[in-house]
């Protein structure tokens, strides 16, 4: 401990660093191994590690025929068909390729709100663990995993990578993230789609506190043919704020202010509104066949990951 460590701001900085270190400790990594193992056993035979695209290519599984065109490889001609039907048709095979998994992490200011048990219990910390777990499972399945952070735009990006050994790169990336800025999923997803031409699985990990609506962002992903998966990070304390009397509430992202006299009746109405908001999001996802999982910060992250697996859509 250095002399400067006695200074308060130094102590605070060190404390935050310690929290970040604890986020992905040995215990966490053991759980990741367990989750990867469970993912293989549970989905064995039905879901393989390798994915096949519908694109025809150089694979070994027959997919279809098409008319011969000058320039095609003669080795691809189906001579049996030519003999029967006197037509030159070229055999098409399903091309095998690895899946691109985009973990889109919301790092807007609202993600750092709450956390009654300390910095390690904020929605952002929870989201980081979920992202790390999903990244590990993806890397273990030889998928290409990329992590993107957003607020009202795409903020930071961890380049695509594959292989289990690269999980520490993901840890380092996640540790360096902090919550700031406003949420605008619509604009952020437009940027994301423009930057990522390769389609794949887009897992959106967010509290979905978007003043302009969640729908815009999700629809951008859907229209761009991304397989979209929503992990909605929920802090139950958001639904029952510890307020009483005359207060001035302001939005931690937008700064919008409202004068409120908080009574038991007001708190009850707020709880109703909060539940209604969650219901709206879930209904939208169900209506548009977007896999959706509500991730309460009260629930252990490994239990949540299993829930994600069972929900389907992440592994196939």
């Amino acid at each position, binding site marked *: 401990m250095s002399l400067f460590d006695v200074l308060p701001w130094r102590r605070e900085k060190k404390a935050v660093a310690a929290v970040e270190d604890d986020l992905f400790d040995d215990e966490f990594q053991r759980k990741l191994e367990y989750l990867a193992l469970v993912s293989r056993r549970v989905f064995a035979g039905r879901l393989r590690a390798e994915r096949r695209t519908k694109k025809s290519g150089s694979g070994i599984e027959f997919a279809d025929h098409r008319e011969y065109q000058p320039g095609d490889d003669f080795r691809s001609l189906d001579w049996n068909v030519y003999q029967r039907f006197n037509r030159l048709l070229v055999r098409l095979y399903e091309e095998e390729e690895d899946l691109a998994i985009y973990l889109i992490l919301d790092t807007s200011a609202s993600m750092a709100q709450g956390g009654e048990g300390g910095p390690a219990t904020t929605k952002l910390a929870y989201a980081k663990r979920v992202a790390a777990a999903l990244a590990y499972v993806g890397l273990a399945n030889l998928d290409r995993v990329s992590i993107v952070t957003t607020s009202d735009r795409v903020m930071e990006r961890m380049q695509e990578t594959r292989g289990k050994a690269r999980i520490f790169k993901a840890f380092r990336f996640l540790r360096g993230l902090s919550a700031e800025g406003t949420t605008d999923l619509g604009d952020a997803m437009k940027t994301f789609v423009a930057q990522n031409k390769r389609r794949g699985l887009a897992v959106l990990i967010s509290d979905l506190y978007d003043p302009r609506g969640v729908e815009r962002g999700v629809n951008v992903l859907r229209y761009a043919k991304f397989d979209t998966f929503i992990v909605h990070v929920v802090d139950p304390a958001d639904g029952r704020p510890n307020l009483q009397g005359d207060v*001035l509430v*302001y*939005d931690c992202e937008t700064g919008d202010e409202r004068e409120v*006299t908080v009574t038991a009746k007001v708190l009850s*109405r707020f709880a109703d509104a909060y539940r209604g908001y969650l219901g709206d999001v879930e209904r939208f996802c169900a209506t548009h066949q977007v896999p959706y999982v509500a991730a309460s910060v009260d629930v252990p992250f490994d239990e949540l990951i299993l829930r994600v697996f069972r929900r389907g859509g992440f592994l196939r």
Partner: protein
Amino acid sequence: MIFAGLPLAELAAIFGAVGLGVAVLYVLKLRRRVVAVPFAPLWERILRDKEATSLFSKLKRLLSLFMQLALLALLVLALGDPRAAESLVRGRTIVVLMDASASMQATDVTPSRLSVAKDEVRKMIRGLGGADRMLVAQMDAMVTPLGPMTGDTSALERELGEVAPTDARADFPRALRFATDVLRDADRPEVIVVSDGALGPASDAAGAVHLGDAKLSYVRVGKEGQNVGITEFSVRRYPLDKGRYEVMFELTNTGARVEDVELQLLGDGALVDITKLRLQPGERLPRFYPQLSGASRTLEAKIARVDGTHDDLAADDHAFALLPERRRARVLVVTAGNAYLEAALLLDEYLDVTQVPPAGYAAAVVAHPWDAVVFDGVTPAEMPKANALYLDPRGPGSPVKVKEALKSPGFDRLDRRHPALRFTALDDVNIAAGHRLEPGEGDKVLGASNDGAAPILVAGSRGGYKFVAVGFDVRDSDLPLRPAWPLFVLDCIDWFDDEDARYLSSFRTGEVWRIPVPASVAAATVAWPDGSTRAVAVHEGRAVMLGEHSGFYRVSYRSPEPGGPEGGTTFAANLLDPAESAIASQDRLFVDGKDAGETSPFHLGVRREIWMYLLLAAALLTALEWATYHRRVTV
């Protein structure tokens, strides 16, 4: 409307300053706690309904401020003590004379006349106007103001609670003179007598009482009552047989019907005699009980109805008396021989008589403290330090100067009331020869010859010791042959011993009592019948006090000088007043030839002090503010 407290300008300044403070505090109160929330649109959802009422909400906040300013205004106004302008000029000055005499203990009204009287006065106090002032005085054998003239009703009610009944008659003229003195030059003076009306005439030795401008009002308490009381009670020992005594009673029926009563006589607490008597309406029945014995100190008389019920006044149903205390007295007789004197002294068994010849006087007089010394034809060079009876004194040592000889003197003039001459008849005593005595200053001539010109029997005191000088040799007269001789000798010794004072069987309540104590005593304490003790003044060998309660008292004294006398004596006191026993309440009261009227109206429960109501309103407003705040009506 006027302000009896702070003036209007000061009130306005206080309101302005404090009101500004309230407003500033109110603005500070409106600053809300700032709280960050993750998603404000959720709050907007629930506040959307409230948008329409925001104007009303602001109004409610203003209402809260107005309520606080109104509260401040009420408190500031209360500081000003606002009053109706006319209340100051129309205030009355009232003296209430509360009769606390014995008859006010009558129970013909429930619970007693005095309690009812207190209730009446309490109503008056609570109905006092804002500018009215009142003084409550207790009227019994004396008049006692219970507090100053004031408009403070709580103080007046507290004073009223101190009124206590006595066993004495009321001194109405004195009370009226006190009231007129208090009300002199006062605004709208009024005297209110709260009594049963048994007060006697409103005049005394100084003449009739004149009330002047003061209005006299009479609040009658009580009604007709049935009462039998002991109106006389006296006891005395026989002078020549002090072991026996005789008792005299008088019972009076002041009611309107025949009463059968049982009279009990108790000696030293034990029943001595019991008698049933019948008294006609208005009858005064004397009774005499001679030759009684069996009590050595106290006597009590009690009467009760035969049928076990009680009459309306208990204060006169019990009387107390004290028998003279008997103690042995040491008497030194200096004589060459006098059979008549020796015989007289033998009659009282409580005398320890020592007889010495003149030559043995010097040795004998210092041997003991003597209660009395009798010099028979002998006169020492100086008076002994004891009371002394001189028979035919001679020479310069005589307490009185012995002048010329008298031939055949007689008792032409006698002071029959002197204790030394009690029960004696000396008018026709024949005396052969004697000498004229010249009394000193302060001496009393008990008997004188030559139509009073030649004193031959003188009493007085020298150096604190009493003496009686007889200006002739009793053997030169026929006095020793008369019953008056032993009576005279024993009377003198009794007087020396102050037994005469103790002979008073009881004092009357309502009078100033003078209880004899040793001359050197400067202060004494009296234990009252209720057990309390009080210091009393001692003046000229008498403890002086005004007694107002019947029963047995005990005076204790101690001389401030070391080795001085200390001890005590007991005495009794009784009401014994037919006027107080006549408890029928009087319809009307006349003073100074005028009939007392009714009191000016008092409005029960209405106070003119507006500040009290302002404070009450402030309290209500505070409660309202509290309730609306917690129900979120004004926030």
